[in-house]
């Protein structure tokens, strides 16, 4: 049974791979054991709860490939020509929560597009390819992480607060807590007292009173943060109108075509988001030209904000009601991080053949 099922998954994966090859992709291979440091730097310590870590006395920590994105981007940045279309087909490994019955090993077949000429059309090309390849019975949802980023950039508050919100974009609970905190006048007594003492005796004297100086974080870093806290104390709370723009965006749950109308209304309240709204509009045109019915395509403002923190534009997912069958999105910023200074706009997605044949049987 297990053997038959594996054979069926392999056959389905080969079929999908051929579709991607026909779409102009170059087939590439990737290592199964990846240097842990790269993934940890990218995703943070939380990845340890998602990927299997192995240890080699000489090579140090290696992670069982949790997805292909990192090796593919690294490979492209090192030796790829532009534009480039890649496909890959192989197993990935994911640690699941204790007690979960989700698979810890499964096959992914992916398609990635690296092209800087026309991002809207690249988004549409990838999405249309997935929509044509997958059964029409699946539930499709789209989103756009770039919209929330542009709203945060436009908030009338300090750089420090904008950066804090941007950093926690992918942690909805923490993001909501920060937004609430920043929308209220500061009432933290400990902090008020701290700043009063700093004014009175100076930060150097405070540190001296605190005892022996230990650790790598220097006195000037501590002094700089206290100066920052003072700025923060004087930062006026976010206006109710601006908070409403964030919450209205996150609550959008309609078709892509209607979402555009809602976004244009939001743009009335926050003109600075015009650029990202026009990116959204151009993508709708491109999708339309490639035969996607944008009047039926579902769009959610909060979609894509809980996955691994690298999507920063268009995001999409196909589910069979229970399982994610395919997902993908744009990850321009990640290529800049992995490309050490160089960057290339990138969009792509993966299909899980096991979920696809389960749905079909």
């Amino acid at each position, binding site marked *: 049974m297990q053997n038959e099922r594996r054979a069926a998954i392999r056959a389905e994966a080969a079929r999908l791979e051929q579709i991607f090859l026909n779409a102009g992709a170059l087939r590439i291979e990737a290592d199964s054991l990846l240097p842990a440091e790269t993934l*940890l730097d990218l995703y943070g*310590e939380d990845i340890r709860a998602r990927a299997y870590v192995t240890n080699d006395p000489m090579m140090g920590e290696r992670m069982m490939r949790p997805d292909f994105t990192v090796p593919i981007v690294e490979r492209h940045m090192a030796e790829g020509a532009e534009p480039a279309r890649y496909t890959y087909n192989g197993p990935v490994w994911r640690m699941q929560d204790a007690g979960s019955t989700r698979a810890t090993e499964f096959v992914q077949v992916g398609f990635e597009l690296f092209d800087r000429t026309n991002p809207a059309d690249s988004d549409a090309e990838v999405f249309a390819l997935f929509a044509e390849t997958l059964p029409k019975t699946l539930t499709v949802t789209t989103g756009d992480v770039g919209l929330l980023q542009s709203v945060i950039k436009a908030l009338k508050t300090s750089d420090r607060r904008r950066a804090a919100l941007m950093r926690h974009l992918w942690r909805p609970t*923490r993001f909501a807590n920060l937004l609430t905190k920043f929308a209220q006048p500061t009432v933290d007594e400990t902090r008020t007292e*701290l700043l009063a003492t700093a004014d009175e005796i100076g930060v150097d004297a405070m540190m001296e009173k605190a005892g*022996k*100086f230990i*650790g*790598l*974080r220097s006195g000037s870093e501590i002094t*700089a943060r206290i100066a920052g806290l003072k700025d923060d104390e004087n930062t006026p709370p976010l206006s109710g109108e601006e908070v409403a723009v964030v919450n209205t965006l996150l609550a959008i749950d309609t078709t892509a075509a209607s979402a555009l109308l809602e976004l244009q209304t939001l743009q009335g309240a926050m003109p600075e988001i015009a650029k990202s709204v026009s990116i959204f509009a151009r993508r709708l045109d491109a999708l339309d030209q490639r035969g996607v019915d944008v009047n039926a395509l579902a769009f959610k403002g909060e979609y894509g904000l809980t996955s691994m923190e690298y999507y920063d534009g268009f995001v999409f997912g196909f589910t069979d009601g229970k399982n994610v069958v395919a997902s993908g999105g744009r990850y321009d910023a990640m290529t800049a991080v992995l490309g050490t200074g160089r960057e290339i706009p990138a969009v792509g997605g993966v299909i899980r053949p096991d979920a696809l044949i389960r749905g079909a049987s």
Partner: protein
Amino acid sequence: MLKLGVPSKGRLQDDTFAWFNDRGLKLERTGSDREYTGAVSGVDGIELVLLSAGEIPKELAKGRIHLGVTGTDLIHEKLPLHEQQVSTIAEMGFGFADLIIAVPNVWVDVNTLHDLDAVAAQFRADHGFRLRIATKYHNLVRKGLQDFGIADYQLVDSQGATEGTVANLTAEAIADITSSGATLVANHLKILTDGVLLKSQASVFASKTADWAGVDDTATALCKLMGWDILK
């Protein structure tokens, strides 16, 4: 035989023996003081199993012992599914240990996890690597920090003398078990006000996977003596 697992040495064993003795169940070591064997009197049919406190959670989970005495911290760290595998029968009122996050006293600007998160972001920008938190409780600490929503940190493994890692420049902060806090003070560290990730004490745990059917009479007698409602 109903198998009761208790710590194989030290203060935790002494306190455990005393706690049971006070309640009419006499536990004692037999043989030489280096031999890991013991005896129980007061209720018939109980076998004493001497184990390292760190082994007791897994033995309970596997059902190889019916009851075990260990710390809540070890149960949580070693058994991600502890709610399905063991139940807490009694908190024993000793072996108090809290899992805490501590930072240098000189970090006068840092009192809360929120502060730590802000510092982690700036630290990474200033130093080019993620702020290091030394611990041996990797699972509990990662879960606690993830629940709060802290980014840009890394856990570095420290199996002992964790409080010294900051002064030795191998970590910026620590997450460790503390009872009195004296070691923290001596090492110029302070606990974050909301930095208690887990409150722990020695407790009696019952295995949910052990074979209880064969030890029914013993379990009933033990419950009666100890005043426990149910054992399973």
